[in-house]
C-alpha cells in the first residue's frame, strides 16, 4: 500500500494544480467569478449535493462496488418526504426523507451483500425502480419544499449558505472514517481482496450493507438540501446525477476497480467540477462546450493517472528489488 499512498500524494497535488489553474484562468477572464458572494452562493452551493453523495460513493467504489441509483434515491426520498411533510409537518418530512433514503440504501445493500448480485446490476435495476416509483407516484409533477428543507437548502448562517457547513462537516467525518479508522481500513481490505478480508474475521456482508445504507442516508441529506435550494423537484432531477457523481470520484483518483483511492482526491475533484460548472457559465461558454470540457478533463486525468501509475510502479519495483538484494545479501 505504500506505493499506492505515494502515488496518491502526487496525484492529489496534480489535482490541486489543475484546480488552481482553472480557478485562476476563469478569474482572469471574468473577475466577476472572484466575488465572494458568487464563490459561496453559486460555485460552492451548486456542488454541495454532488459533493455530499460523492463521499459515500468513494467508499463504495473503494470496495469495488458502484451505485448507479444515487440520484434516483435522492429524488424518491425527497418526494416521499415532501409528501409526508405536507400531511404531518416538517419534522415528519425530514424523518421520512431519511427513512426512505435508508430503505433504498438497505435495499441495494442487502441484494448486493446477501444475494450477491453484482452492484452494477443491482443498482442499474434499482435505478429504474426508484426513478419509476417517483415518476409513477407524482405522475410527472413536482414536489415542493418544506420549511426544514428550506432551512438547509436556502438559508444562510454567518453569511454563508448552511449547506456548505454541512458539506464541510461531512467531508471531515468521511475523511477520518476512510483514512484513519478501522472501518476505512476494512473497506480497503474488501476492495483489494474480499476473501482474505473475510478470513480476517471481517463481516463483509454487514460492511457492504452499511456503506450502501450510508449512501442512501447521504442521498436523503443531499435531497433535502436540493429541494430546499430549488423549492421544488421533479422526478427526473436525479438521473443526471448518477454518472456525474461517479465522474467526480474517478476524477479524484479512486480506481473503479476498487482498493485504491482517497477522499482528498474526491473533495478536490468536487471543487474542480464546481469551479468548472459555474466558471464556464460566467464565461458564457455554452453548456454543450462545458460538457466537452468535462469529458476532456476526465480523459486527461485518467491518462495522467495511468502514466503516473505505470512510472511509479515500475520505479518502485526496481527500488524494491535492489532493497531486497541489499537486505538479503
Amino acid at each position, binding site marked *: 500500500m505504500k506505493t499506492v499512498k505515494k502515488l496518491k500524494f502526487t496525484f492529489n497535488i496534480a489535482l490541486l494544480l489543475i484546480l488552481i489553474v482553472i480557478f485562476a484562468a476563469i478569474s482572469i477572464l471574468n473577475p466577476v467569478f472572484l466575488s465572494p458572494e458568487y464563490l459561496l452562493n453559486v460555485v460552492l452551493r451548486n456542488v454541495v449535493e454532488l459533493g455530499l453523495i460523492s463521499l459515500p460513493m468513494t467508499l463504495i467504489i473503494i470496495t469495488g462496488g458502484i451505485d448507479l441509483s444515487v440520484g434516483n434515491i435522492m429524488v424518491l426520498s425527497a418526494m416521499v418526504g415532501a409528501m409526508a411533510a405536507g400531511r404531518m409537518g416538517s419534522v415528519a418530512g425530514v424523518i421520512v426523507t431519511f427513512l426512505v433514503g435508508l430503505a433504498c440504501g438497505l435495499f441495494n445493500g442487502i441484494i448486493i451483500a446477501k444475494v450477491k448480485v453484482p452492484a452494477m446490476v443491482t443498482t442499474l435495476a434499482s435505478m429504474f425502480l426508484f426513478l419509476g416509483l417517483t415518476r409513477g407516484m407524482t405522475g410527472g409533477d413536482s414536489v415542493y419544499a418544506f420549511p426544514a428543507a428550506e432551512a438547509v437548502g436556502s438559508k444562510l448562517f454567518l453569511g454563508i449558505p448552511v449547506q456548505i457547513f454541512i458539506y464541510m462537516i461531512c467531508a471531515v467525518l468521511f475523511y477520518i472514517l476512510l483514512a484513519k479508522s*478501522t472501518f476505512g*481500513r*476494512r473497506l480497503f481490505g474488501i476492495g483489494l481482496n474480499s476473501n482474505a478480508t473475510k478470513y480476517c474475521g471481517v463481516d463483509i456482508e454487514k460492511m457492504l450493507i452499511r456503506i450502501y445504507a450510508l449512501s442512501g442516508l447521504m442521498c436523503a441529506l443531499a435531497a433535502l438540501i436540493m429541494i430546499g435550494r430549488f423549492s421544488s423537484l421533479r422526478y427526473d432531477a436525479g438521473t443526471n446525477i448518477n454518472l456525474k457523481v461517479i465522474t467526480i470520484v474517478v476524477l479524484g483518483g479512486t480506481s473503479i476497480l476498487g482498493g485504491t483511492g482517497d477522499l482528498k482526491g474526491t473533495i478536490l475533484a468536487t471543487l474542480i467540477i464546481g469551479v468548472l460548472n459555474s466558471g464556464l457559465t460566467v464565461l458564457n461558454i455554452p453548456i454543450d462546450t462545458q460538457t466537452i470540457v468535462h469529458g476532456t478533463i476526465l480523459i486527461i486525468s485518467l491518462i495522467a493517472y495511468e502514466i503516473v501509475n505505470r512510472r511509479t510502479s515500475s520505479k518502485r519495483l526496481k527500488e524494491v528489488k535492489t532493497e531486497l538484494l541489499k537486505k538479503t545479501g
Partner: protein
Amino acid sequence: MGETVLELKNIVKTFPGVLALNDVSFDLEKGEVHAICGENGAGKSTLMKVLSGVYQPDSGEIHVNGQNRKFANPMESYKSGVSIIFQETSLFEEMTVLENMFLGHETSKKTLGFLPVLNYREMREKAREIFKRLNTKIDLDTKIKTLGMAQKQMVEIAKSLTFDANILIFDEPTASLTQREVDALFSIILSLKKEGMGIVYISHRLEEIFEICDRVTVLRDGQYISTKNVGGTNKDELVADMVGRTMHNYYPKTETELGDVIFRVENFYDEGFLENINFEVRKGEILGFAGLAGAGRTELMEAVCGLAPKAQGEVILDGKKLSISDYTDAMKEGLVYVSEDRGKYGLIVDMSIEENISMPQLKDFSKFGIIDRKKESAVAAEYMKEITIKAPSPDFTVNNLSGGNQQKVSIAKALAIQPKILVLDEPTRGVDVNAKAEIHKIISELTGKGLTILMISSELPELLGMCDRIYVMKEGRIVGCFSRQDATQDKILKTALEGEGEE
C-alpha cells in the same frame, strides 16, 4: 537416448528491474522426461514462458525440432509442436470442456466456399480420441466450473494434446493434486514418454523427480547451475545446487513434552460435506491431517473455525464448550486458521506487512475506532524479527515478497492474534526447499512455546516428519489415526484411499 528435439541457447530475459534469466541453456531429447528445479523465483516458469512464446527473450536462440524459432505468442509455439500446461490454470470456467480444448485453434470448414464455420463434429471426435488415450471420461459439454481440480488438470493435459505436439511442458502440475491423482498423472506421462514425446517437468517435490524423470536441470536466481542424470545424483546434491549450500535437516522437529488434551471436536457435522467428526489434540502437539484432495480437510478446519455457517457440532477448548457462529468468535477464543491459498484467502497482497498483521484484530490496534499506526508498525516489526521475514520494513507491500516470505507473513498474522490453537492448511504449498525448512523450524519452535498446531498437508513426508499424530480423512469422515511411531507413507495412503485403518 534419442535425438534432441528442443534446444534453448543462452537465453537472457529481463523484466523491469529484474534479471529473470541470465544466459540459460537447456536441451530436451525425444522420449525423455527432463526436470527443471530451483527455488521460488529461480526462473523456471519464465524459461518455459519464453519457450512457449508468452515472453520474447532479450537474446538467445530457441531450436525446436532442429529449426531456429521465434514465437510471437503461445499459439505459434503450439503449432510448431510445443505444448505447455501453465502453472496457473488457463481454463475458461464458463465455457465447456470442448470449447476449452480447442480455444484459439478451432477446426472449421468453409461454408459456401468462403465462410469459415466451426466444425463441432470433428472437434468432438478428436476430443473423444484424446480422452480415450488418457483413459479418462469427461463429458465434453460440461462447463469447466463444475469440474474438480484433478479433472481440470486432465482437461489441461487433453488440451495440450489437441496439438500434434512432440514436446510437452508441465509447470508444477501436482501442486494441487494428491497422491492418487499424481499417480494417475505419472502413468499418463510415462505412456506419453513411450510414444516418444519429450517432456519438461517442473516441480518442487523432489521425490517426484526421482520417481519419473531422466535428467534434471537446476536453476538458481536466473542462472543455469547444472544438468545431471537423475540416476547419478541424490536429493542432497540437488538441494545443494538449488540453494547454493548443503542442507541436511528438512524436518527440524524438536521433541516437546505434550500436555493434557486442550482441544476437542465432537460430533461435527455439515450436511453434504462432513460427517460425525471427532478428534482431540494435546497441548503442544502437532496434529496432522492427511487425505486426498477433496477429502474435506479444509472444509473441516473452516467449519471448526466458524467459516462454514451451516456446520454443527461441539468444540471444546480448555474444557469449555465454545459457541462459534463466525470466525470472529473463533479468533476471540484463540482458534486461528491459516488458509491454504495465500493469494486468495490468506493475505491482502496489495497491503503492507503491518496492515496485514493488524487486519484480523484492528480493534486492538485502535482507539475510538482510529487506528494507531505506531503500534501497528511496532508489532509488525517484532514478528518480522521473531520469524525472520525478509523485508526492508513493516510497511513493505506483501506483493513484492517471495512466496516463502509471504507464507511467513500469513503465519505472523495468525500469531499476532495470540492463538491457543493454530490451524495451518498446507503451510508449505508452492514454497521452495529453503523456505520450507525455515517454516518447519518456526512450527517446531512454536510448539516448544506451548502452542498447539493442527496441520493439513498433502505432502506425506512433511506430515511424517513434523507431526506427533496424523488423522486420515476420506469423503468428509475421519477414517484413521496414526501415531508418529506407527505412521508410514504406505499405511496412510492406503487408509486415505480405502478408508480402513485403526479408528
